[in-house]
């Protein structure tokens, strides 16, 4: 961010967000903002509450308390589809593609013109050139053109993840949430993913990236938040957060002392 620039209105504002499950406070008073144009990384050991946080922001879980604001608008109490329509799109840690639909169809579902008006969508039979073109562009962006007519369930792992990103981008969201997109990838695939996320950043207002892979976090994030036990432990520039002793302890402690 250029020094002296006026602070722009945040894309996402999370205030004191908490989620209680029976006896466990999975997310505890988390607050942060995401500014336009930035990629915010979220790191933390397993069980820190990162995915729960994403689920709260995207509307998959209702929050116990706290607030989420997207472009100034309060998302509390909105249904999943309303949050999706307001401009949040996401990928999933355990890949949730529409397996029995083709790659092209998966991306076509995101077309907001039809998703928002399903009945009117019926009458578009036959004349779908424009949306197919648009979907193909997203597919091309993620390098999946060769697989366009292949069933999503048959895709190899790396490409399945890319399809999820393409599908999320095709809703033309303001905010893109990526939940451990590099999980299970090798080095080569991770490098491709970095390129893909950079391409994606240009199409949306901001990106939130949950990751375990530090190389990805360092390569992509403008800022980083570290979580543990449902709380934010540290926040700031990637180098600073990763060097933070608390953060180190949380990670080293998890992997076992050398």
């Amino acid at each position, binding site marked *: 961010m250029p020094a002296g620039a006026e602070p722009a209105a945040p894309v996402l504002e999370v205030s004191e967000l908490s989620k209680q499950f029976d006896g466990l406070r999975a997310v505890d008073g988390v607050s942060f903002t995401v500014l336009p144009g930035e990629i915010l990384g979220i790191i933390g050991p397993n069980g820190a509450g990162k995915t729960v946080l994403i689920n709260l922001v995207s509307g998959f879980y209702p929050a116990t308390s706290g607030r989420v604001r997207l472009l100034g608008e309060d998302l509390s109490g909105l249904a999943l589809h309303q949050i999706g329509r307001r401009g949040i799109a996401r990928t999933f840690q355990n890949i949730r593609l529409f397996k029995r639909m083709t790659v092209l*169809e998966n991306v076509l579902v995101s077309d907001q013109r039809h998703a928002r008006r399903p009945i009117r969508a019926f009458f578009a039979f036959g004349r779908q050139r424009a949306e197919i073109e648009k979907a193909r562009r997203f597919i091309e962006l993620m390098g999946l053109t060769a697989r366009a007519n292949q069933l999503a369930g048959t895709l190899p792992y790396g490409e399945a993840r890319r399809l999820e990103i393409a599908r999320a981008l095709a809703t033309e969201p303001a905010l893109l949430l990526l939940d451990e997109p590099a999980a299970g990838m090798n080095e080569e695939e991770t490098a491709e993913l970095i390129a893909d996320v950079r391409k994606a950043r240009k199409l949306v207002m901001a990106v939130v990236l949950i990751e375990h892979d530090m190389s990805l976090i360092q390569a992509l994030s403008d800022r980083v938040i570290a979580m543990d036990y449902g709380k934010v432990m540290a926040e700031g520039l990637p180098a600073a957060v990763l060097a933070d002793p608390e953060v180190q302890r949380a990670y080293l402690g998890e992997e076992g002392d050398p």
Partner: protein
Amino acid sequence: MTVDYLFFTGVNILLAWSVYIVLLTGNLSFAQGAFMAIGCYAAGIMTTRYGVPFLAAVPAAMAISAAMAVVFGYPALRIRGIYLILVTVGLTFCVRIALENFSYTGGVGGLKGMSGATLWHLGGAILAVGALLYLLSRSPLQRILDAVREDDRVAASLGINLTYVKLFAFGAGAAIAGLAGALYGHYLIFVRPDNFDILVSIFVVLYVILGGVNNLWGPLLGATVMTLLPEFIRALQEWRPTVFGLAIIVMLLLRPEGLLSFRLTSARWSGDAGGR
């Protein structure tokens, strides 16, 4: 082959399609017996008691069926899976019992005097519904339904209003079942509540399972085979439920997708030359 059997086949085709359209959104409905009954009785009461012409009563009956579906469906579609199936089963029982107990609808004795439905009407209905389903399969709405069926929460996160879509499918299914019921009643002249009991709902679901759930031809095939085949093979006629049951069991073991398991990809159409 008697006209009767052709007629029943046609009615079963419509009923199978009505289950199919609800199945497209991922819900299995055993309520077709109920909506068929509502359609039949609504149209029947209009034509026999109020002198409404047959061709006007049928669409009205369809609308009434659809309306009932939306009213019951709205709270019910919030629950999922087996629970929703049970509610549809309950609905079928409730409708039948209600019809048996209210003299306005003729009670156990049934409703008489309906007439006016011919094979032409039925044929027209089948063509119309079939055409609509075909157009559906080529439209973006098909993809939306598929997405809802595959993973409804993810579909919702993409901006799709699940309740709206599921209710639409449920209502459409009820309207088609109501259409089938109205035609059925006005052909048979006389119906009783136990013409619409839970076995009807079960059989129709099984037609769809047998024929295949992936496209509109499957239910058509399942209904046609199971209604017409016994006409040709005497032995089948007497042992229909057993043969049917065994066919389902064997089919599910060997080919769970049904007899017709090819998929009609909705994006696959003449403009799309993409690599295959």
